[in-house]
């Protein structure tokens, strides 16, 4: 890589990485306690929805998951594009990742309404709502980050050497995707 990146810029990049690392560790503790709450509530119950889900029942959640994975792939593509200086591809990737994120939220909302669960149902309804809701809020936060990066890309803020914010946004988006994979397993598979 041609090094226009100054030592000060490198130091800032390192600070950004450390910060994101601590934030994600803290987020992991948040989702960890939520999953533990789910498991604790479940141990007290005789029956539990989705213990042995049918293929048709799983179709929509699997489709939603695929949309989010595709979105993560777009985000990966956009990050790779700016590393070789292609600002146009960066913008296209970010826009697609955002749109797919929106589609995922819509799919999740549909999934929740279709399930017939209500937050005030005994036990499962509430925790199903809480897990999906917490995650959806993180997807929305990630879309804000990607959207801001899109705006900055439009203003020409990023080039081959200066794109820390794009990296950080991409990693956050990977993280949100990974959390959903865990939640998917917890809610539908185990």
């Amino acid at each position, binding site marked *: 890589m041609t090094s226009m990146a100054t030592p000060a810029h490198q130091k800032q990049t390192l600070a950004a990485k450390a*910060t994101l690392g601590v*934030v994600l560790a803290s987020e992991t503790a*948040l989702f960890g306690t939520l999953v533990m*709450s789910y498991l*604790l*509530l479940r141990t007290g119950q005789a029956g539990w929805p989705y213990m042995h889900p049918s293929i048709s029942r799983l179709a929509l959640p699997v489709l939603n998951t695929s949309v989010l994975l595709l979105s993560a792939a777009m985000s990966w593509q956009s990050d790779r594009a700016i590393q070789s200086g292609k600002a146009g591809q960066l913008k296209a990737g970010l826009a697609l990742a955002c749109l797919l994120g929106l589609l995922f939220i819509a799919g999740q909302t549909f999934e929740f309404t279709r399930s017939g669960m209500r*937050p005030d149902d*005994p*036990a499962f309804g509430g925790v199903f709502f*809480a897990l999906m809701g917490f995650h959806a809020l993180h997807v929305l936060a990630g879309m804000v980050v990607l959207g801001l990066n899109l705006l900055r890309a439009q203003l020409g803020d990023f080039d081959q050497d200066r794109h820390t914010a794009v990296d950080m946004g991409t990693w956050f988006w990977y993280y949100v995707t990974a959390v959903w994979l865990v939640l998917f397993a917890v809610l539908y598979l185990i």
Partner: protein
Amino acid sequence: MTTHAQSPAISLPEARGFAHTHLGSWIMTVDHKRIGILYMITAVTYFLVGGIFALLMRLQLAQPNNHVLSNANYNQIFTMHGTTMIFLVVMPLSAGLGNYLVPLMIGARDMAYPKLNALSYWLFLFGSLFLYSSFAFGGAPDSGWFSYAPLTERAFSHNHSMDFWALAILILGISTTLGSINFIVTTIQLRAPGMTFRRLPVFVWMICITAFLAVFSLPSLTTASILLLLDRTIKTHFFVVSEGGNALLWQHLFWFFGHPEVYILILPAFGIVSEIVPVFSSKPLFGYTAVVLSGLAIGVLGFTVWAHHMFATGMPTVALLFFSADSFMIGVPTGVKIFAWLGTMYGGKLRFKTPMLFAIGEIALFTIGGLDGIHMAVVPVDWQVTDSYYVVSHIHYVLFGGAIFGLFAGLYYWFPKFSGRLMDETLGKWQFWAMFIGMNMVFFPMHILGVLGMPRRIYTYGAGLGWDIWNLIETIGAFIIAVGILIFLINFFATLRKPPTAADDPWDAFTLEWKTSSPPPDHNFAQIPAVRGRRPLWDEKHPELADWKLEEA
């Protein structure tokens, strides 16, 4: 470094006018020293409020069948006393000292994110005022500082007090998390050349471990608060057993935060004592590596002992055994620290100035509190004394004797750095003895009351139970502490009226914050210092006896 150099240019022209007024310069500040002072002044103010709550409780309990407070008021007062002292006094006071001192001690010009730092403070102030505004909207929270569900569900807590509590806790949690991220990144990023992790002052280590504890434990409290709010607003049933919820879920979530929280409260005080004891013993800290490693061990083990707060909930025997043994284990690294401080003092040239008195007081009182904790790690003992005054005694020896004495030691020690003025020694010693004697009069008899079966949180009690005399002694002791705090306030304001004549390094200290002027200039150091050992200022003052020379020899 370039970011700091650029930041003044970013500020808006219209903001600059206000920022140059006296008030505006404090409100608009992003300087770590000023933010530290804001934290400390706010925390000391809340300390006075929480102290008045404590005096009200002691007045009510001075005699049997007393009528100073109604039962409803008493519940609000003890809940707000605990919540205030933990979230609005000890945590922000440590954050304030950390803010002021961490950049100075590591030879940096500011925190890594100065604006985020200001945001942390203002969120803290907003969250605390929000909590207190509940008094004006139908009453303050009244379910104790750990707010056990389902008692806090709408079915049992009709007004909005618990909503205020849960929302305030969320705001304060965000503030602490942002502050912690800042401490961690600052310490990783901004250390002066040569300030390796093995040379980092113990106070900085402890602030960092505290920050990690906060970042990992607060999410559990966040989850608990949000689930409680969902239960109370959209009628989910997380903690309602009849609807498939689980009452113990709250206790697990709360104490998974609550026990690391105990170490969040005490580790900064341990850091302060580890700075003060060596300076006033004229010796380097005995067992630096052991002290740091024991701090890390406490940080890790602190996450594995939460259920010892729940021994009385009918856990399986294997869980009882695990959490009991684990709680014994966490006493070991704490003991390591105490022996390291004693080893530092042993054979040293001791100077009993006020900071040193408070530090020694901290060691003595925390030892009693720690041993009480060991008693209660024994499950049958815990079953006997749980929810009695024995527990109240334990937490006050640990948090008042431990954390507050440690923080006062720090305030006396660093006050000349903050203000350029030395606090009066005679008044300082009077304050120490009033607080030390008063503290033992209040909290030692609580052991006896606990064994005699007096439950905590009762607003009154009948005569003839054998509790009267001890309660009266405790109330007298509480007012002796109050006299001590009054002496502190007199000392504080009288000192501020004196001219700033303190030397830059009045205690003949070891660490970098004493290398710069008192108070330090805006950017702390004209030149970033180079560090070659654990006591950089000692090395500079005694070049022929420098630590790094002896290490090489």
